[in-house]
């Protein structure tokens, strides 16, 4: 549209230039000019035209305001803890009451604009009656009142459960189980009715099912609330509780649907129970959601009052395709379900749903009684029993007795003819029934095979396995069974010393699940099958310490010690060669052979360390004897000159984190931290234990194997958060049952590096999760706040750490740099750079959404990558873009492309940028930050990193192209200033990924933090494309390297300097932070980053006025 283009062009001009421009642009086309002028005139004089929307459907400021009541708020005697639900009427919180008793309650704040005084008055009127209610299936309403903001609230007994329909479907309860669950509900309602309380709002969300002792127990909630909050239906109140009406119409009785109907009695509740029963059986309410959806409000009310609902069995017959899933949720075959519901259940339901309440069950108890009769195969009341009906019932009830009788043919002969006819009928019926039942079971078993396959597709191996066990005895010869069994389960070989140990498993990711018993071991290995998945194992035998931990199921062995034979809280570590697959020096580790030994289950706690301090540990010479004291200069020191350094904040002997000779209150179970290697050694001697060598530590923690056996869950459960946790609060149980080996605090090891430091392994809070995979070391006097330890105890006459150390004495760490010939520009281009080329004209097909996150705009764009997926379509990639606010964006934003550390390849999803190593500081500094989810990171992370070199090369190309495509996207946006594009990489992003700067000419300035050249032997034989060193000389843009002096992964001399020296950039700078670790303090790094980009890209312009 030419008009539109001109229209916008003119609008961008100053008022006095417009006429001239338009005149020139229209080149005599007067019509065009007039059209545009009219549009401009309308634009300049909009009046009220479309000024405010007809309706605010979406967020209006009032809606956006958070509710005044939120966790932490004190309401009367109650303190809100967390929101646990939200319904049409109000928000439900878990709250804590202190007076007169301390307990947790549910507190519901009514949110509609109701008349608070009236609500409370109505509640008070019924309060007396409510307090009389006392029934195990009723959650009591305890209190009511008004919040400070004037809204009514109700306090109820806290029930943690699911709505009954949801519970039944999720647990696939059979119709019988459902009825059994509804009976106590009826009895609860009966109890309330006897106390004169009508519920008035019975619906699935008001009947919660919670499990107590693994038994489902239904609880009716909200008694008294409906009465207090909803008036009878009048013209006015028809709409006062919209949310409520939407949720409740389905369960509303005909008398409740009448306008101005005041006469509601207990039989309304019976009707609602009937609707619920209907839904439990058929999966839908008599008036379906679908139908109500299409129908006007008044019409719905008419239908409730007048329309006869279809019988439940008829509803099932009409439910078409849905019937299969409805039946499956009830563990039934469709035909069988229909047959089951037809007849008595139909009658019971229809009796509760009578429009005329005089024809319903008179009490909830009589409904319950009829359900019980049905379950016991007795004639139900709901229908006047015909003769045939009574007989059928009689036969079923006396099934076994009749069988015996029928077998006695002689006796049959003496019976009257009428009776013998009766008996024969009974016997035939019984045989026929058994045959058909068997056939039915076989059919059902066959029909479960697709369910098993479906469960496996959804990776629900437990469910698949359970189903399989169910059908195996019925159809043992079915050809699919062996394969299905193979796919959904794993065979274990279990053994133990001593024998006869009970073995249990629990899914590793479900710490609250109960243990399932697998088998009891014998004096030889026994085989057992468990569903596929990751498990924590447990072995128990009375009189023995129980053993927990992960095990490879193919050969799980459990060695149990008699109680008293080993110290509490130590676990036995199996003998073997410590394994660090794929890690630096793995060959050295593999050359060491360790016998069995014991290791502390937990890191040494403040409490334990306190005993050492109180026992005068710092003053007892024998604990400090012959420790090789060295200063930071590497020179030997006397004990006398070192001891004054080993003090707490107040100068008393103790860890650096303590005060006045003791730990902080409440932290007795926290790991002791802020201790030097010397203190750890002295404590170990005090405790009659030792520090582990790196071999013992590796053998005890088995980090890599733990990750293999427990999946990422092992890492997720370990503590890499901001603060240490109680050693007993962690759930990252390792192979041998150790806890907290990785994360929380890092743990001193016995042995030293070639440059005089001591190893300290496992990583700590606030560090990237890959740190445990490296060999970290500190100066032995280093007392960082996260330096802690755990001990080992040698058994079987092992001499001590020195013996193990001897075997691997020659450990060359840190590893010296490697020299290799580099490529000239032409070779580099041919061998490496050209391989990253792709067809840039391929459309990106951007689909983006953006959220205003306060300080910045967060755009998430899905774009095409440069390669195709398995189906031949362009693989898609998410690019996160954070646009700063308050920036003059007319010349375009400056942007920084971000490449995260190696943990991006382990974490399931990208973190908020404030947690991505504080990336938000860059945005606050006025630059956009771009985070492409490159292949192999976050949501696109690879399952395995253990791949051949060729695959690695392909992955590298994908990485490079993903970054380039992200830049294509920035170009296409049009609001990014492309000649001011920066790159910031951290760790992996500064080393391997940082080589992007050599092949992507659109980057204009680069910051590498915590990068360096890796020299580990395992990386020595890589292909050229994978070797960062080949890229570095071809980087030409300004580079700033930021590193820590004490970085354990990229040491200065061996790793940082070689990288810096190879950089081809004419402008380059290397800042080494004194005493810095792998990560620099955020304030330091962002100041450096900001300055670098300001210098080389220009300072971002602040907007002069907001738009």
């Amino acid at each position, binding site marked *: 549209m030419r008009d539109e283009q001109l229209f916008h062009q003119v609008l961008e001009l100053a008022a006095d230039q417009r006429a001239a421009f338009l005149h020139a642009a229209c080149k005599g086309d007067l019509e065009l000019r007039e059209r545009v002028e009219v549009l401009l005139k309308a634009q300049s004089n909009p009046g009220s035209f479309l000024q405010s929307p007809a309706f605010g459907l979406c967020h209006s400021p009032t809606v956006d305001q958070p509710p005044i009541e939120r966790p932490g708020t004190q309401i009367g005697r109650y303190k809100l803890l967390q929101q646990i639900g939200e319904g049409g009427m109000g928000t439900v919180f878990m709250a804590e009451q202190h007076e007169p008793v301390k307990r947790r309650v549910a507190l519901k704040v009514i949110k509609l604009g109701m008349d608070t005084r009236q609500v409370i008055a109505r509640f008070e009127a019924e309060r007396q009656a409510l307090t009389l209610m006392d029934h195990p299936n009723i959650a009591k309403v305890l209190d009511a009142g008004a919040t400070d903001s004037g809204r009514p609230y109700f306090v109820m007994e806290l029930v943690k459960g699911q709505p009954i329909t949801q519970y039944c479907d999720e647990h696939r309860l059979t119709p019988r189980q459902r009825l059994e669950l509804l009976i106590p509900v009826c009895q609860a309602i009966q109890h309330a009715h006897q106390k004169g309380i009508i519920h008035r709002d019975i619906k699935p969300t008001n009947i919660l099912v919670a499990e107590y002792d693994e038994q489902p127990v239904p609880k009716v909630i909200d008694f008294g609330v409906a009465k207090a909050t909803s008036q009878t239906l009048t013209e006015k109140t028809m709409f006062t509780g*919209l949310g409520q009406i939407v949720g409740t119409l389905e369960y509303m009785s005909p008398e409740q649907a009448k306008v101005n109907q005041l006469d509601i009695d207990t039989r309304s509740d019976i009707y609602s129970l009937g609707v619920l029963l209907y839904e439990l059986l058929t999966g839908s309410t008599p008036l*379906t959601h679908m139908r109500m959806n299409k129908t006007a409000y008044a019409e719905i009310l008419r239908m409730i009052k007048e329309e006869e609902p279809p019988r439940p069995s008829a509803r099932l017959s009409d439910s078409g395709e849905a019937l299969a899933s409805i039946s499956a949720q009830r563990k039934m075959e469709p035909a069988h379900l229909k047959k089951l519901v037809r007849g008595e259940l139909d009658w019971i339901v229809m009796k509760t749903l009578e429009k005329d309440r005089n024809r319903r069950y008179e009490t909830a108890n009589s409904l319950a009684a009829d359900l019980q009769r049905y379950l016991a195969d007795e004639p139900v009341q709901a229908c006047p029993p015909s003769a045939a009906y009574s007989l059928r019932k009689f036969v079923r009830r006396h099934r076994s007795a009749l069988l015996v009788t029928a077998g006695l043919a002689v006796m049959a002969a003496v019976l009257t003819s009428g009776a013998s006819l009766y008996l024969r009928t009974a016997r035939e019926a019984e045989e026929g029934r058994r045959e058909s039942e068997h056939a039915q079971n076989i059919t059902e078993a066959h029909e479960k095979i697709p369910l098993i396959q479906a469960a496996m597709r959804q990776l629900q191996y437990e469910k698949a396995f359970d189903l399989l066990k169910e059908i195996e005895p019925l159809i043992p010869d079915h050809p699919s069974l062996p394969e299905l069994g193979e796919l959904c389960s794993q065979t274990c070989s279990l053994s133990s010393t001593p024998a006869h140990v009970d073995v249990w498993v629990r899914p590793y990711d479900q710490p609250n699940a109960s243990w399932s018993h697998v088998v009891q071991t014998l004096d030889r290995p026994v085989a057992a099958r468990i569903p596929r998945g990751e498990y924590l194992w447990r072995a128990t035998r009375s009189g023995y310490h129980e053993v927990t931990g992960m095990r490879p199921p193919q050969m799980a062995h459990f060695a149990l010690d008699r109680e008293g034979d080993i110290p509490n809280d130590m676990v036995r570590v199996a003998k073997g060669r410590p394994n660090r697959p794929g890690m630096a020096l793995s060959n050295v580790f593999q050359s060491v052979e360790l016998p069995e030994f014991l290791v502390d289950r937990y890191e040494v706690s403040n409490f334990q360390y306190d005993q050492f301090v109180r026992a005068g540990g710092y003053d007892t010479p024998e604990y400090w004897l012959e420790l090789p004291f060295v200063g930071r200069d590497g020179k030997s020191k006397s004990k006398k000159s070192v001891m004054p350094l080993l003090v707490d904040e107040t100068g008393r002997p103790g860890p650096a984190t303590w005060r006045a000779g003791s730990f902080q209150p409440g932290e007795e179970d926290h790991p002791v931290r802020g201790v030097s290697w010397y203190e750890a050694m002295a404590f170990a001697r005090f405790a009659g234990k030792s520090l582990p060598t790196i071999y013992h530590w590796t053998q005890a923690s088995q980090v890599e194997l733990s990750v293999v056996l427990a999946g990422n869950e092992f890492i997720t459960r370990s503590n890499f958060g901001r603060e240490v946790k109680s050693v007993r609060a962690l759930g990252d149980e390792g192979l041998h049952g150790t806890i907290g080996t990785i994360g929380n605090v890092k743990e001193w090891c016995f042995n030293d590096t070639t440059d005089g430091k001591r190893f300290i392994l496992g990583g700590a809070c606030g560090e990237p999760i890959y740190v445990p995979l490296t060999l970290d070391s500190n100066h032995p006097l280093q007392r960082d706040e996260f330096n802690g330890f755990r001990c080992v105890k040698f058994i079987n006459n092992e001499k001590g750490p020195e013996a193990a150390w001897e075997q691997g004495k020659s450990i060359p760490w840190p590893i010296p740099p490697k020299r290799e010939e580099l490529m000239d520009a032409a070779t580099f281009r041919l061998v490496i750079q050209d391989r990253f080329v792709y067809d840039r004209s391929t459309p990106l097909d951007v*689909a983006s959404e953006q959220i*205003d996150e306060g300080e910045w705009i967060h755009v998430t764009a899905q774009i095409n990558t440069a390669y195709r997926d398995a189906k031949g379509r362009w693989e898609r990639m998410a690019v996160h873009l954070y646009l700063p606010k308050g920036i003059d964006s007319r010349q375009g934003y400056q942007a920084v492309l971000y490449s995260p550390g190696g943990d991006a390849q382990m974490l399931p999803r990208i973190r908020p940028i404030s947690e991505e190593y504080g990336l938000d500081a860059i945005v606050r500094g006025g630059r956009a930050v771009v985070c492409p989810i490159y292949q192999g990171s976050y949501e696109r992370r690879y399952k395995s990193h253990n791949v051949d070199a060729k695959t690695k090369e392909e992955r590298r190309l994908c990485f490079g192209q993903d970054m380039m495509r992200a830049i294509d996207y920035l170009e296409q946006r049009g609001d990014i200033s492309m000649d001011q594009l920066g790159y910031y990489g951290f760790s992996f992003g500064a080393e391997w990924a940082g080589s992007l700067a050599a092949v992507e000419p659109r980057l204009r300035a680069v910051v590498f933090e915590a990068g360096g050249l890796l020299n580990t032997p395992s990386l020595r034989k890589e292909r050229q494309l994978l070797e960062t060193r080949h890229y570095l000389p071809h980087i030409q843009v300004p580079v700033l390297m930021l590193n820590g002096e004490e970085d354990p992964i990229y040491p200065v001399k061996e790793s940082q300097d070689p990288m810096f020296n190879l950089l081809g950039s004419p402008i380059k700078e290397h800042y080494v932070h004194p005493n810095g670790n792998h990560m620099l303090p955020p304030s330091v790094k962002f100041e450096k980053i900001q300055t670098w980009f300001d210098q080389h890209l220009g300072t971002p312009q602040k907007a002069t006025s907001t738009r």
Partner: protein
Amino acid sequence: MPLVYDELRKLAAVKLAQEKPGQTLQATALVHEAYLRLVGSETQRTYRDRSHFFASAATAMRRILVDHARARKSDKRGGDRQRQPLEDVAAPLPDDELLALHEALDELAVEDPLKAQLVELRYFAGLTGNQVADVLGISTSTADRHWVFARAWLQTKVRGLT
């Protein structure tokens, strides 16, 4: 989807809380009617996504407003002054203008369906510029440009060349 459902319910609640006393419920009933039609059940009616939901909501609102404007125009029995017109709830356009807008929007939809939808979302569903951009998958600045133009264009159609 439950998210949108909740948003709507919150909004309905707020709207009701703000209701002036004594006002007839007719307009509110209409809004509810639309809500019920749209969100009557979160399980049965599935919107493909948020965008689809809002687009449907906007269309429903437009249709209801237009229907009522038409009904009022044809209902000349004089009772409509007592019956509160919709303006009290939302202050939209006079009936004639609303119907003209309706026609003009149809015309715009033929030429430029994106802009017509944008107007529907902003005006009939009350989405902000950012939200509209979000729903339509275009940038905010593009959405703003489209809005400025579409509004001017519609104004010339509805109010003539004053």
